[in-house]
């Protein structure tokens, strides 16, 4: 039972604090947006006012199977972007148990940050059977982060199953993280994983087999790439940050290409 008037008051108060740059208001608005309840329409209209006149952020999706190193890469990107003076938010999505609705969200383990740094924001989200390993209101949450003023928004999601297309809808650029493992390339292609990616990162290239995996990916993409040219494949070691600078360069190129193609 909630009183609609007090709910509206509460949203208004939160919006006020949000505009004043109160990170707690952002955190609470994300919770309201994420709960999938009936007030999403109110939040969306609120969002329109919050976002008005704000610069848009560069939104980067990070997808790949569990254990590929997505969180480690997110951590490396946060370091890289902070060093470049950019503010970054990370939305780390992990699936909830379909039975209990509970979830273990452990992505923060990999993220190192200075607790006094206002330029970083990390939020863990449990996804409940929604398409694409994203919460139903992912687009709204990303807009909140954008409206709050983060220069860049990273979205980590497990790209499992057939429905990873959702990440396309919220991210400007999608990075697929894979690990060296002979023979899996065909599976990735069959699963349609390669199609949704703008950049493919072969992570854990400190382990044997990275060169072979990268080469066979390139070969496969050359065949299917057609006129558009194939997506870039880059070897990285997220754990040490090696290759992350190059990866970011490709992300920026991909963003420019994409914004030309989709006016």
């Amino acid at each position, binding site marked *: 039972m909630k009183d609609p008037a007090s709910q509206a008051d509460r949203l208004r108060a939160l919006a006020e604090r949000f505009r004043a740059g109160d990170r707690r208001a952002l955190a609470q608005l994300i919770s309201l947006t994420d709960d999938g309840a009936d007030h999403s329409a109110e939040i969306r209209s609120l969002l329109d006012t919050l976002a008005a006149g704000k610069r848009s952020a560069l939104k980067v999706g990070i997808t790949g199977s569990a*254990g590929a190193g997505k969180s480690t890469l997110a951590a490396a990107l946060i370091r890289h972007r902070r060093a470049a003076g950019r503010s970054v938010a990370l939305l780390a999505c992990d699936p909830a148990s379909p039975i209990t609705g509970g979830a*273990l969200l*452990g992505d923060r*383990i*990999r993220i*190192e940050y200075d607790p006094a740094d206002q330029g970083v924001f990390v939020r863990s989200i449990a996804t409940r059977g929604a398409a694409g390993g994203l919460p139903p209101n992912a687009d709204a949450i990303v807009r909140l982060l954008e409206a709050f003023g983060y220069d860049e928004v990273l979205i980590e999601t497990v790209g499992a199953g057939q429905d990873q297309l959702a990440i396309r809808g919220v991210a400007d650029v999608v990075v697929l993280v894979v690990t060296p493992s002979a023979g899996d390339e065909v599976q990735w292609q069959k699963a349609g994983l390669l199609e949704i990616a703008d950049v493919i990162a072969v992570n854990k290239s400190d*382990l044997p087999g990275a060169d072979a995996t990268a080469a066979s990916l390139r070969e496969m993409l050359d065949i299917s790439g057609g006129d558009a040219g194939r997506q870039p494949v880059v070897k990285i070691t997220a754990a*040490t940050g090696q290759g992350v600078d190059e990866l970011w360069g490709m992300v920026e190129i991909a963003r420019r290409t994409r914004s030309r193609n989709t006016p």
Partner: protein
Amino acid sequence: MATFDTISGREIKPFYTAGDLPNPNGSDGAPGVPGVPGAFPFTRGIHADMYRGRLWTMRQFAGFGSAEDTNQRFRFLLDKGQTGLSVAFDMPTLMGLDSDDPRARGEVGRLGVAIDCAADMQRLFDSIDLARVSTSMTINAPAPILMAFYLVAAERQGIAWDKLGGTLQNDTLKEFHAQNEFVFPPEPSVRLAVDVIEFCARHAPRWHPVSISGYHIREAGSTAGQELAFTLIDGIEYVERALQRGLKIDDFAPRLSFFFNAHNEFFEEIAKFRAARRIWARRMRDHYGAKNEASWRLRFHAQTAGCSLQAQQPGVNLIRVAYQAMAAVLGGCQSLHTNSMDETLSLPTEESVTLALRTQQVLAHETGVTSTADPLGGSYYVEALTDELEKEAETYFARIAEMGGVVRCVESGYFRREIASAAARYQREVESRKRVIVGVNDFIEPPQPIPTHKADPSVEPGQIERLRTLKAQRDPAKVAAALDRIRASAAGSQNLMPAFIDAARLEVTVGEMMSALADVLGRYKQTAGWW
């Protein structure tokens, strides 16, 4: 309902017969006959006369507060008849932080003794003759540095390094599997451990430079079979790395030592110790071609299972510890720590430490279990279990090799996942009361508070003060040069021990040396397989 599988989930038959005896090949004696104690493959013990020749070393782990506080506890224990010392360091020292580091706040001298520099180590052993006592030091990531402090303390007592006896835990691999006191990534961690092995082989030949430890793996919830397999495969990893350095197997293998858990499941534990000796002896002789019999003999320290102690009815812990200790002795341990009954509640009081030590003395002098070697040898049950455990370990070795070896399996989280699933199974069995734990899920009584050890709040400020004074008295240029040398050695492939020892002589601190190392080696966050 009663259950007839072990706490490790091994099914037990209603009875065992000659048909269950293993069929060991050749040197282990005729089929079905387990051989004799003191002979290859040492299933029945590493000495023919076992405890008739010499009792195990009664070694109680102790340390708290300042170096002086622990020095006093050491002298108290030696007075009560303890025969070896075992140093517990505080958490900041274990993690390689100085007492004045902000991250050390509240933890200085709390769970162990605070040692920042060689001068602290010297005070820790004040009036204790390092040539006569054997000392065990439980320390891992910063082990080479604490070893350097010890060597310098000995030097200052005028004692030559080749007179020093004792053990450095120095087993970083199990930190990744279980204990979580790692600092550097797996590869450089192993390198540091092997630096000590190499250095001691040349300069401190009586010292045990590593104590390859299953204890913590078991405490994290592993089965007996996992404890056995993961410990021995870690040992093999150190051996491989030492051989890669160009050491000869017989130059260092005799000084490797092991550390196992003595848990509740009485016969399975005994079988675990016996299997460990047999597997190791075969590996050393048949695979590595060791010629020196001392290389074949697996020596181990045992500690009763801390995780089996309960906060409810703490007095009952005395009984658990006694049975566990008997398993360790029937399994042929070389040294033993018996836990105190109050250890789930706080650091042990002097009374409870004394009772724990008395437990060993009763075992040694009153029960008669020491009169003959391996009294259970030839038992259908124990021999069959020994064989099963050996097979289980060999299966794990093959799987780990397939997955690319120990370091790869650390990185992929394999060890942690295996341990976690065993721990979860056990947890469910306790929750569902499939397993009875006295005082916890049956035979419950209202809580009875017992007196516990009170920490002294003045330790931390005192230690910080002393450290600041010491740091101010040093020559900054010399300290900086010593740290540069550590960085340079770390960046190359030289043995780091000489650089640590020279720095220790200048009272460079553990925190300073560790951060110099981290500049080059990097720091490790958390391993995979967390869940």
